[in-house]
């Protein structure tokens, strides 16, 4: 039973960490896109 528990726990933990990492990176990129677009817009205005 310990082995069964270990196998499923490791897989789920790794999977959730991977998905969490992907969404964190995606969020960071979106923030960068917004910031860069604003910079371009400001530059156009000036």
């Amino acid at each position, binding site marked *: *039973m310990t*082995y*069964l528990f*270990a*196998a*499923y726990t*490791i*897989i789920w933990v*790794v*999977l959730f960490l*991977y*998905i969490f990492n*992907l*969404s964190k*990176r*995606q969020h960071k*990129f*979106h923030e*960068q*896109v917004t910031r*860069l*677009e604003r*910079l*371009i817009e400001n*530059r156009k205005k000036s």
Partner: protein
Amino acid sequence: MKSQNSLAILTFVLMLVALYAIFIYAPTERTMGPIGEVQRIFYFHVSSNWTTFLATFFVFLNSILFLMRGTRELDIRAATAAELGTIFGAFGLISGTIWAKPIWGIWWTWDARLTSFFLLWLILIGYQMLRRVVDSPGQRARLSAVFGILAAVDVPIVYMANRWWRTQHPAPVIAGGAGSGLDRQMALTLCITMVAFTVLYFYLWKLRCELERTGDTVEALQRRLQTQGLEVR
């Protein structure tokens, strides 16, 4: 975004159904004696390995298409498939070793099936290392496409290993010839889990491709600002 959310919900529901089937619906293996419960690892193990094969197939397909058409989108698709292949391959290896310990008394043995699968996993890791060391985007895409095509050569060897050679790894239970086969409930559970893993794969693939595309947008915007004389990090 809407299709991504629908896929996330579908993955979640299918995973719940798969877990129900694995732990409640599927019967306990009888020939393994008091440790028959360990056999339930089999459903995630086979599904992880199946998904690794699927990912390697997509690496192969997109690599060929990339060499023919040379678009960045195909390079993204191949690279993300390789990353997912590595992750699911790791799941297959981890679940396999955890199953092996109580059943065989050892964590690992260098038999044909295990070694060829481990080799496939190393090739997929090598693919990603290659992408990190080559700086030129065009050269990186071309080299990794060639490497991706070569990676797929190992898949039929992994699949056939326990058919061609006597291995410590159990004989195939699906399409394994006379005497092979699975209990009806076990077979259904395996099918559900494989479908759940396939949908999970496509969900993660979509997420990962989207991330790569957004990364490209960031780079393009940075370049645009640089051409205007502004250094942006």
